[in-house]
């Protein structure tokens, strides 16, 4: 997973684009100076954020992945499973003989 700075960049303005409505929900306004950023969670679900505040909110909430990072984690998992399978297969084979 990446840091807020890595994914969202650095906050340039002091203006806040984050509001809270009467029900306690966050409402994020679009920052015209902020380039849209696509974020992913670890299950590869995705969303687009339009301000630094919104980006920071979601990154801290776990949307701190990229598609490439998800592929990398999946590949790493596959490697570990393959290596473990080799060992398990060998042990079963060993005990059979």
């Amino acid at each position: 997973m990446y840091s807020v700075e890595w994914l969202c960049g650095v906050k340039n303005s002091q203006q806040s684009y984050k509001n809270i409505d009467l029900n306690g929900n966050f409402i994020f306004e679009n920052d015209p100076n902020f380039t849209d950023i696509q974020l992913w969670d670890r299950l590869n679900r995705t969303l687009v954020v339009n301000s630094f505040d919104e980006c920071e909110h979601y990154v801290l909430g776990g949307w701190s992945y990229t598609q490439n990072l998800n592929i990398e984690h999946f590949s790493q998992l596959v490697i570990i499973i393959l290596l473990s399978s080799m060992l398990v297969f060998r042990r079963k084979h060993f005990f059979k003989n």
Partner: protein
Amino acid sequence: MPWFNSNFFDEVKPNENTIFNDTYFEINPCKISLAEFIFFEENLSRFEFVSDVSSPIYCFGRISSGNEGSTLKIGSNFLVSALIIFFLLSTLISKTPLLNKPLAINNTYVSSLFFTSIFVIGLILADSKYYNSTIFYFLNQSLLISFGYLTLFIFLILNILVNNYEINKRVLINYLPFLFLFSGLVSKSNLNIWLVIFIYFGFHHIRENKKPHFLNIYLFLIFFWAINASTTFVKIPTTFLGFTSTSYDFYSTILYSICLYIAFCGVKFLIINQLKYFKLSELLNNFYIVILCKLLIHYLANQSNIIKFIFEYLFGEINTNNLNSNSFFVLNKELIFLVSILSVYQSFIKKHLNIKTLGILIYFFLNITNYFSEINNSIDNYKEFLISYNPTFLEFIIGSGPLNLNQFLSETGFDINNTTISSLSSMIIFFGMLGCLIFSILYIYFITSKKYGFFEKFFGSLLIFSFLEGSGLNNISFFVIYLVLFYIMKDNYLSKNFFSNN
């Protein structure tokens, strides 16, 4: 096979008309495999291929980016490279014959595996500055979970080496020359699979044997070396990757000093358990095979950049700057000299000169002028080293710690890329005058002892000369072979057992 890795169902489909310029690879990073590129590019000779260690797993074997159109970076992810090199070496090990009685490794090997994994992670942490500077994409180093993953990865591959490839049941001592063919280095990292195997053996040796007398003195020295390493020095690019620290600091000094001791124990463990299987003729046959393979690799690597890239990935660095009849000899003079000494020694004992010995001797004598000019160069390099070397009093007495040249190279203007550093120079840097004194006492004992005959003393002296002049302290292959020969000479093993072994 790994160079065929590509997504054949995506929209990027190169063909004969595709122009591979640097814009093409900027738009399509990690989209086409090296094999596809070779197939569709007509003029391969205009490209140079380099490993890209900063690429992810899925990019392995694909062209990750182009640089000014002539240098192409090929994805060489650390984890995949480690797996490929590991399985290559394991397959090689599995071809060696089985022992009559397995090594003294019982079912408690798991703890040795665990300690080895943890220690290797420690070495990776000690090299973190190097890995950060070369942007290694093996994991996010700031996360603890990354190191957990790496520990598990190393633990599993070592477990496979022990369980599936049965390293503890193999006769390895006669096959040590293959250390010179396969460097065991993973991509451009500082991790050497051979070193990991010797660390594993080393932990076994430590567990099963009494503490040697010199260990307390060595621990005392480590304490001083670590205290002395108050200033950090990092010298990149690093020479001798795989058996040297990439930075000089408190942590690296301790870890690499311990590493040398454990690797030493690992080699000793192998010798103690396998000495009775040692056959000089078999060792020499393997040396001849290795020299012939190296000659072939050297020739082929000079023919094509792509072959050079693949061979460098599998076998380690290949120097292709100057292709002439002498360059191979100059690059491998230490190995050829070592094999010549052993071949002549075998002929003296057997009182018979075989065709292989004759071949290597003819080759050596044809290049004798090159050999002496290289020795002259070594002497000049040593003089240059003495001019550059400027230690503190403590460093002069006890050195600045083993397997670490960073302080010397950072503090002085010594150009290691153009001036080779010998074992003698390394010994002075690592162990200071104390190390040199102990080495001299051992040599004087060897020369004056009545236990050894004239031939042992003569050939032993040649080996010691080759060790001091060469890179025995900086290279795992030479370190292992010299240590094995030292123990064989020390116990007078060859003269006592030669005839029964052949």
